[in-house]
């Protein structure tokens, strides 16, 4: 390939108050390649790509596009230079239609919008790349996978030659991921360059033409396809070996910590969200919930944490019904939860780590001095937690919304686990985490299990479910379609239970 590189980033440095997110990073994109950017949580991947797409201005370094040095002062200039980015957190306007989102910011269309023509054009454009979208649909009605397609169409519409996808697969099902990768391959055939950020090793092996590894803000290596192997990549990323803890063979206890009896509830649209759910989780047991996204996982977690009303049936903790309890009473009964939406439901984005860590325990007598908080004592406790759970804080009193995904999750787990729960509900606990953080979270869960905690693990990743769970319940369309022991069951059988019921669901529509 002797065409010039589409993109060259030379010695990019970007500092935020208290952190150097990128430290003299080098990176390039060739025409027709898929370049994977790899690195731990907080290693500066999103920051580097935000520099490339004109969102952040670098403190030092050069951006060279097709041989010309550029200085982006705004995303518009980057878009005009052919750079398009699908951000980790989608940048879509929920109350707009798909078409309105796609044409947003395009100055070449006539002032008076002819939505009909635009929609026709978009349908054609998306079909050409095998991306199914409905231009008239409202964005808030779309699933995550569909939203992502809209983001990609947005970039294609603006004529992007370089397409950056920041952790596109974190929220996708395996089928959707497969589809996405096929689409990306097709796009490289037209000479486009694609950058993909991911934490999943098998995806790197599957799609990467080249890999660049970032560690703590520095680019440590760029490998060609032939040189890529999993061990090396892990080493480059983390700089140390990753400890894998095997599942302890202590059998679960027989205490019924959580019991659901014929639980029904409604979803946000007022339709049946859960139908006739019954199961039991014992002490010292990890009970995995498998299922395709949107099969009632969120509703299930919320019903148990008392965030969602039950229309009929009972939820019991240690044989005591908590069906009519408030969330706080549920907490007092020993229910802890790591929700799906870390910053929205789990943590208070604008408060610092200390305040977030004591959100559940501030009522304890031991942390108080009369009506006031004992700040010296809380700070001490918090410091212990921070070192025990290896939470990396840039500044102790910075709002937690500035933390990277992995650190947010550790913070949340630290708070929930130390609240001495009987039951821990973990919803997608490793979504968006790097391999090291994933291992750490898994080890934490296993450790708590061996201490007698009951864990309800909700995940889309069957590998994770099999690795951790004692028993697996399969959720589909708001029903439990089967409960199997994890050791004596194959992935295929679980997959079938997920699929089977899915087919039924489709035929009833």
């Amino acid at each position, binding site marked *: 390939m002797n065409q010039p590189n589409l993109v060259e980033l030379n010695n990019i440095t970007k500092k935020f108050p208290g952190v150097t997110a990128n430290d003299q990073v080098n990176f390039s994109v060739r025409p027709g390649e898929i370049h994977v950017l790899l690195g731990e949580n907080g290693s500066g991947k999103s920051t580097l790509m935000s520099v490339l797409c004109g*969102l952040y201005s670098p403190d030092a370094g050069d951006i060279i596009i097709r041989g010309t040095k550029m200085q982006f002062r705004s*995303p518009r200039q980057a878009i005009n230079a052919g750079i398009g980015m699908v951000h980790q957190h989608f940048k879509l*306007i*929920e*109350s*707009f239609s798909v078409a309105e989102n796609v044409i*947003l910011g395009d100055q070449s269309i*006539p002032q008076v*919008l002819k939505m009909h023509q635009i929609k026709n054009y978009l349908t054609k454009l998306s079909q050409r790349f095998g991306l199914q979208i409905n231009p008239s649909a409202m964005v808030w009605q779309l699933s995550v996978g569909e939203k992502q397609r809209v983001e990609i169409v*947005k970039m294609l519409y603006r004529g992007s030659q370089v397409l950056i996808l920041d952790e596109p697969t974190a929220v996708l099902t395996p089928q959707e991921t497969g589809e996405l990768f096929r689409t990306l391959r097709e796009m490289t055939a037209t000479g486009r360059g694609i950058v993909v950020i991911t934490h999943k090793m098998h995806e790197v092996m599957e799609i990467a033409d080249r890999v660049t590894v970032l560690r703590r803000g520095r680019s440590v290596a760029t490998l060609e396809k032939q040189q890529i192997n999993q061990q090396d990549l892990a080493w480059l990323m983390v700089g140390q070996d990753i400890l894998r803890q095997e599942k302890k063979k202590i059998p679960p206890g027989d205490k019924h910590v959580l019991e659901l009896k014929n639980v029904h509830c409604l979803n946000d649209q007022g339709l049946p969200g859960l139908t006739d759910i019954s199961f039991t989780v014992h002490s010292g047991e990890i009970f995995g919930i498998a299922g395709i996204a949107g099969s009632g996982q969120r509703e299930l977690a919320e019903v148990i944490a008392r965030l969602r009303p039950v229309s009929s049936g009972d939820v019991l903790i240690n044989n005591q019904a908590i069906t009519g309890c408030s969330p706080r009473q549920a907490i007092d009964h020993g229910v802890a939860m790591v929700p799906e939406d870390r910053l929205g439901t789990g943590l208070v984005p604008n408060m610092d780590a200390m305040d977030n860590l004591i959100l559940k325990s501030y009522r304890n007598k031991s942390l108080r001095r009369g009506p006031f908080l004992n700040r010296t004592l809380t700070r001490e406790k918090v410091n212990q937690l921070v070192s025990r759970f290896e939470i990396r804080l840039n500044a102790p009193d910075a709002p937690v919304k500035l933390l990277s995904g992995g650190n947010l999750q550790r913070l949340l787990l630290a708070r929930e686990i130390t609240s001495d729960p009987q039951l821990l509900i973990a919803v997608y606990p490793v979504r968006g985490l790097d391999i090291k953080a994933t291992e750490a979270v898994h080890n934490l869960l296993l450790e708590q299990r061996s201490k007698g905690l009951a864990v309800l693990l909700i995940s889309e990743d069957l590998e994770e479910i099999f690795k951790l769970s004692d028993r697996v319940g399969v959720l589909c369309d708001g029903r439990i379609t089967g409960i199997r022991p994890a050791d004596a069951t194959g992935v295929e059988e679980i997959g079938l239970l997920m699929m089977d019921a899915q087919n039924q669901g489709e035929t009833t529509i």
Partner: protein
Amino acid sequence: MSQEIFVAILATAITAGTPILYAALGEVLAERSGILNLGVEGMMLVGAVSGFICAYETANPWYGLVVAMLAGGMMALVHAFLTVTLRANQVVSGLALTMFGIGLSGYLGQSYVGLPLPAPFKIIPLPALSDIPVLGPVFFNHDPVVYLSYLLVPMLWFYIFHTRAGLQLRAVGENPAAADSMGINVFRARYFYVIVGGMLAGIGGAYLSLYYVPSWMDNMIAGRGWIAVALVIFATWNPANALWGSYLFGGIDALGFRLQTLNVTVSPYFLKMLPYIFTILVLILVTKRNLAGRIGSPQALGLPYDREER
């Protein structure tokens, strides 16, 4: 009630509603871009006094109207600078603007209080249209500023919902980060719409001092700016709804006035309360409706935007 009185009340409802309408249209634009401007009352006052002074000195109400527009725009520029560039709290900045406007207009108007305007706006019955029974005298027997608002409302409605620029305006107010990432200049858009909003508020204020009263009195806006702010919610940020909402409030205003002349014995203080009681009722009803449905305020309303902020 005889038909004549009925028609007269409706016609007054329109003139009384027009200053509120202009101010509300301006606030619709500002809030659509994500900036809450509680300085409407202040901007209207400064518009009213500067418009009056200019029209008094030049004996031409049109010059007054233009000056009022500029004055309102200048006031809004201060708000834009504080809230967009310095990212100050929009509520505090807006309240400060209102207090400032009350003081400034009082100071500027000191020597003009109670003076009669030599040449206020005049009623120009529209040929043919004004001869239509009932509708004619209600809608087409007014001054040019009212006719202008008839044009402005559909234009703004079309602009907001059917043009490229309107789409960008709404995007900036819904999700500035998304708009920015698509290459829309969020800062420029917010400055622009806040200033245009101030200009419209200035016109609304001047309408009172150049036609409705027409004279300058201390604090003559008398809370109409606040009604306009409430009306924007009532109108769900839609210019078309703002139109009939304004006339409704204008009608209550006019009714109070008429009842007095008809010798109905209601305390004038009670009548003065009516529009505000109604505002509170409307707010209760509208927020209930908004909670139920998905039509809500622009998502980013009141939030400052910083590109490098997470």
